[in-house]
């Protein structure tokens, strides 16, 4: 058996297998890269080379011309793994000093009954992103925007680190007996609403989504309505706007009440 040379054109197995394989490959390439694309009038190809490039998936330069721009600023924050790191004590200390000017609305310990969001124990990435968006104008609020306007990047990082460091305090309105409404547990797949709990706590927490437990009903409702109407638009890729637009007023109410009652 060993005297027969394997890689030789005189070996019929070699010639036939290589020949047939190559023939199939060439034929399928001719069909797939030239004939089929040319057979499709919608592609409007300039010639054979154009057909080959098109079928091989060579990206084409986008057509020149003005692209549609939104008439508002969009968020430029990218959530990276950097934001999920634990911060150093120095940063937390600086944040504690800076936070004194936030205390009037958000409470000296990051908790307040004023229907402004509770920040104690909120994820650092969330606070950092919102401050950035207030500063850039992607999110607008008569009270917050002026505060954020002059903040440096380091100040925003420090504040985020400080509030993330503060322990979560159970809200006065915590009530373990409030049942989770369907929109929190299952969402509504047919309306493209994922369960709130899949990102905002309770079931799972996705990096970059705020923890909602204990936030006031008034605040959550106001934000959902703002997302639905488009007055708030700093959610990346319209994630929350797409959801809020689909929610009924009853679902908004139920979700807000549920999260307010959570620890």
């Amino acid at each position, binding site marked *: 058996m060993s005297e027969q040379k394997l890689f030789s054109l005189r070996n019929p197995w070699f010639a036939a297998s290589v020949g047939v394989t190559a023939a199939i490959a060439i034929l399928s390439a001719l069909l797939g890269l030239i004939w089929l694309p040319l057979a499709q009038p919608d592609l409007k190809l300039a010639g054979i080379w154009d057909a080959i490039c098109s079928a091989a*998936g060579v990206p084409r330069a986008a057509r020149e011309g003005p692209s549609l721009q939104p008439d508002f600023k969009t968020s430029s924050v990218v959530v990276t793994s*950097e934001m*999920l790191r634990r911060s150093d004590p120095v940063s937390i200390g600086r944040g504690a000093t800076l936070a004194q000017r936030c205390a009037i609305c958000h409470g000296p310990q990051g908790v307040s009954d004023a229907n402004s969001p509770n920040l104690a124990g909120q994820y650092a*990435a969330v606070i950092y992103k919102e401050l950035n968006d207030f500063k850039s104008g992607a999110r607008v609020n008569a009270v917050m925007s002026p505060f954020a306007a002059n903040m440096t990047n380091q100040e925003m990082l420090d504040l985020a680190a400080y509030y993330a460091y503060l322990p979560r305090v159970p809200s006065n309105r915590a009530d373990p007996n409030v049942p989770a409404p369907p929109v929190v547990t299952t969402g509504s797949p047919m309306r493209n609403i994922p369960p709130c709990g899949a990102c905002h706590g309770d079931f799972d927490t996705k990096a970059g989504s705020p923890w909602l437990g204990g936030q006031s009903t008034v605040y959550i409702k106001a934000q959902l309505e703002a997302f639905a109407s488009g007055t708030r638009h700093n959610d990346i890729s319209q994630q929350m706007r797409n959801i809020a637009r689909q929610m009924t007023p009853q679902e908004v109410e139920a979700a807000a009440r549920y999260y307010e009652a959570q620890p």
Partner: protein
Amino acid sequence: MLINKRLILAHFWLAFAVFGLALVLGAWQMFERSPLNAWHFDPEFYYRSVTAHGSAMGYVFPTLVAMGFGYAITEASLERPLIGVRWAWAGFLLVAVGAVVAMAPVSLGLASVLYTFYPPMVGNPFYYIGVVMVVVGSWVWVALMSINFVAWKRDNPDRPVPLAMFANVAGSYLWGWTAVGAALEILFQILPVALGLRSTIDAGLARVFFSWTLHAIVYFWLIPTYIAYYTIFPRAIGGRLFSDAMARISFILFVVVAMPIGVHHLFADPQVGAGFKFMHSVFTGLVTLPTLLTVFTIAASAEIASRLRGGRGAFGWVTALPWSNPIMLATALSLVMLGFGGAGGIINMSYQLDSTIHNTQWITGHFHLIFGGAIVIMYFAIAYDLWPHLTGRALDNFGLMRTQLWLWFIGMIVTTFPWHYVGILGMPRRMAFYDYADPAISPQAFAVSMSVVGALILLTSGILFLLILIRGQMAPLYEAGAYRFSVAVHVPTRIPVALNSFGLWLALMVGLTVVNYGYPIAQLMVLKDTNVPAVYVGATQ
């Protein structure tokens, strides 16, 4: 001549233990997302369970079966002890430890990315490290199969390599090469992100790399089944193999065309050009050839056995087959499932037909019918056939074995046929929750409930299978004699060098990979701005 019986048994036992656990998860998943379940818990558990089920059934279970069966074939067909027993144990340990390392983060909910990884989702690094350990452990087996094959050929230059060993080495080479895609994906795309070195990932390129593995891995799972068809079935029913050369050509065809076809999994993905999708579709069509050759050869071998037993007539010979023999029954049931599954597969590989069922439950039904059905039922048969030789104890409760095989077949049909059907209705896969109260999908509720019944039948059959093996382990000692493989009608004494070696076929395999994957991969590697931010799953904040 089986010498390292403990090594082989360890592989089979670990494989079947993993299979048993993953089977329970699978049955639970079927129930969980069915209308029989009142929705009351965390959807995250579903994805966690699917990840564990897929990783165990896809990476650990068949790999261990192929490895254990491969060692058994090496010793029994070459009639000499395995070279590299310590390495084999090391490979086994790597697979076992890797499985634990991968499953720990999955069960903690830190890596619910499903077993196909789905970047840009990125989970805990230990999940991927565990999978890499499993793959590296199996590569030890690939190397050992090659070393034993070459060493035997050097010592026996004038004899053809026994068919079982030839096919076994074909399977190992196929796996060695096809696992490279997933390894590239994990090492260069996913792990750097999972370890926090990068925060963006080229999801398109990663998916192309995975498709390199994703289709041929099924043929790697399939090879032990085909080896059983060719080298166990004819002997077990008292016949002869119709053609030794046909068998070799089938395995060679798998080596050459099973791998460079994976882009048909990406028909709906935008990052690969339509022309390459077409080429992959054509080559996927070619993989039907070795299967059709096999069905023909196995049916011919069965006819030989039947006529030797006095079977007559154009079709009457079918009744004269030894139907009470579990191997006969398993092979027949396996071929039926292969027929249905294969027909479904031809639909999946057609560029146009695929668009109807892409990413629907049809796909999940399809690969369960092929892998869980046609392939795994032959793993049962292999275990039944090998067990007396490995344990030195009789395994003689044929009635129980037949019940188990029938239950598996019925369970698989009852599970997967409705599964295919709801896929045609448009039911998407990879979802934890379906609102069956919605009029748009309420007609699917009955079919999904039927699948749950099938899953319970499968679970019963799986438990029965493990009980049979455990009972076999406790039966009184008995001498099973030497382990033998089927003999061909025309026993090969001299065969062409091409049918006795792999050089040419490996060259064609790599060459076709370059032709079919070279440009899509090169283009995605060269293109800038194809990276997207990773989506961290289970990230603690």
